[in-house]
């Protein structure tokens, strides 16, 4: 594409100058760059031939340039995302461990092993429950915050910036902080004890509450970002629409449900999907808050991945990793499609 003879182009250029006018005719032969056709070509060059050579040359150069601009990021994505992603499938069915050099195909053994030990079902259930709680808490809190912080005043600016602080703290650190708060001697129980003396419930010792709290901390950590996304969504709603509804006598709730809520759809999609995907890969908060316990009631899939990796059962860890991927595809992809459709409809 690049190697178009320069003589040809020069010739064409000169021809262009020689006979500028003339109606286009005999387009069919233009594609054949035979030298003696130069004059014929010249009579029609305004519409096509030499320009097209130029274009093609430029386009060729452009394509090379584009390739150079895209290549580094594509290479990184392919090597560190696509290849591992593809390799995960064979590894999930392999006997790869840290104890032997050989990696063999063992069919579904990793999965049956995990299923027999109950890890697969338990951690899948834990992960999904965690993700749902996290998504609910995060979106309810951040939508409420966004609704009360949507106007830009000095006070809301202050609240917006302080509610963003947990985002900066690592989920691991957040887990330690909240582990202290909900510990039997912690401030939560101390507050409850004001009304119910002697209250010293071990929240993280209870399988159900433990899942709630780890998911809650994950939501706590990310609420700041979701709030800002909702504020952006609310601000993109034309004020006239709300005012018109107000004049027509629509109340606060009516205005929210009939106007803001449907028009928030893109922000909604973004927040629901990011929280869900993030929560399906939950690990850090669990590591600091409960260590997977009590029992394995907070052992998420990714927590189990790290455990199996710690035992050097790489094949088993891959199988769990593969399961996270499946879960994301099964849950998130239909959700994205459904939410997107809602966006278009509204």
């Amino acid at each position: 594409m690049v190697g178009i003879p320069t003589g040809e182009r020069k010739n064409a250029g000169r021809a262009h100058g020689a006979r500028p006018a003339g109606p286009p005719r005999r387009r069919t032969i233009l594609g054949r760059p035979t030298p003696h056709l130069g004059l014929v070509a010249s009579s029609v060059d305004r519409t096509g031939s030499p320009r097209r050579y130029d274009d093609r040359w430029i386009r060729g150069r452009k394509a090379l340039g584009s390739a150079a601009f895209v290549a580094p990021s594509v290479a990184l994505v392919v090597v560190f995302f696509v290849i591992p992603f593809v390799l995960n499938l064979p590894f999930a069915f392999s006997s790869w461990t840290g104890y032997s050099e050989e990696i063999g195909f063992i069919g579904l053994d990793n999965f049956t092993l995990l299923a027999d030990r109950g890890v697969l079902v338990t951690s899948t259930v834990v992960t999904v429950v965690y993700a749902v709680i996290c998504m609910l808490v995060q979106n309810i809190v951040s939508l409420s915050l966004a609704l009360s912080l949507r106007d830009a005043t000095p006070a809301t600016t202050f609240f917006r910036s302080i509610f963003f602080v947990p985002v900066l703290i690592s989920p691991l650190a957040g887990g330690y902080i909240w582990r202290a708060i909900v510990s039997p001697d912690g401030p939560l129980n101390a507050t409850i004890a004001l009304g119910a003396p002697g209250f010293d419930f071990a929240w993280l010792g209870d399988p159900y509450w433990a899942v709630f709290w780890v998911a809650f901390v994950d939501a706590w950590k990310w609420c700041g970002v979701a709030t800002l996304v909702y504020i952006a969504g609310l601000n993109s709603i034309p004020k006239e629409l709300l005012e018109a509804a107000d004049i027509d006598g629509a109340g606060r709730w009516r205005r929210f449900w009939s106007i803001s809520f449907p028009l928030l759809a893109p922000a909604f999609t973004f927040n629901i999907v990011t929280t869900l995907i993030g929560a399906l890969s939950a690990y850090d908060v669990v590591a600091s808050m409960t260590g997977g316990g009590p029992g394995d009631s907070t052992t998420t899939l990714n927590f189990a991945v790290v455990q199996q990796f710690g035992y050097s059962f790489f094949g088993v860890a891959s199988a769990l990793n593969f399961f996270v991927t499946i879960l994301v595809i099964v849950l998130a992809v239909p959700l994205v499609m459904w939410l997107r459709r809602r966006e278009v409809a509204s």
Partner: protein
Amino acid sequence: MTVIARTRPATRIASRRGPTALRYTLLTIFAIPWLVVPLWLLVVNSFKTEREAADLTLALPTEWQLIENYTAAITAGNYLTGLRNSILIAIPTIAAVLLLGAMAAWVYSRSSSMTLQSLYYVSALSILLPPAVIPTIFVLTALNLDGSLSGYALMMIGTRIGLFIFLATGFVKGIPRELEESAEIDGASRLRIFFQILLPLLKPVMFVGAVLLVIAVWNDLFFAQLLLRGSDSATLPVTLFTFASASMNIIRWNEVFAHVILSSLPLIIVYVVAQRQVISGLTEGGLKG
């Protein structure tokens, strides 16, 4: 109808002030368990002795033990190594993602070629699908980068660049082509157009990208723990986790909290300086799903 239209503005003005005051009161009340208690508990207990911190109260320390706790977090907590490694990871990762991502986003947003579009979709897919960490270790071993900081940084770039490409491509689509075209007619090379025209225009989305990236990279434990084994290459979250897990069942809250504060401090300091831009950047620019 006309009656409503006439009375409405009056009631609105009257009802405006009430809810505003009420709203700020509610927000303040909400902020107490949400922010004030957690942060106060964190700070105040990092000043206490181990025995006093074990009670986890919000009271001021009766016996201050500031220097000892923070010294323990720095020495036994391996803080300085963690800080060095976290910086060595975060800065090149962010620089590479922003530069390489912007280059790719420019091409993706200006082209309709099928090949480029599919490459764009592959990159954007990495936002949705979780990275496969175990095979990544295999790939890094094959490249002789397993356990190294550069291997971890490369993995971070490869898995995080998709989000930035996605954001930046949407952003570039909103920039008119005329600027680039006139520069091209004036004979500017592609590189020059990119660096002198496009990159300055991309500042808002690059800022948002940098904020989201630094939060993700600085705080990552999962991949760091699996890819960086050995204490010399530990990042801050890894050093915190190791430090807190050192004594099996009991957590020495005073020292752990000191470490939490120290490892969160760099981002908090940056945030205090740039909070206005961070908040307005995330609300106004970039994030359009």
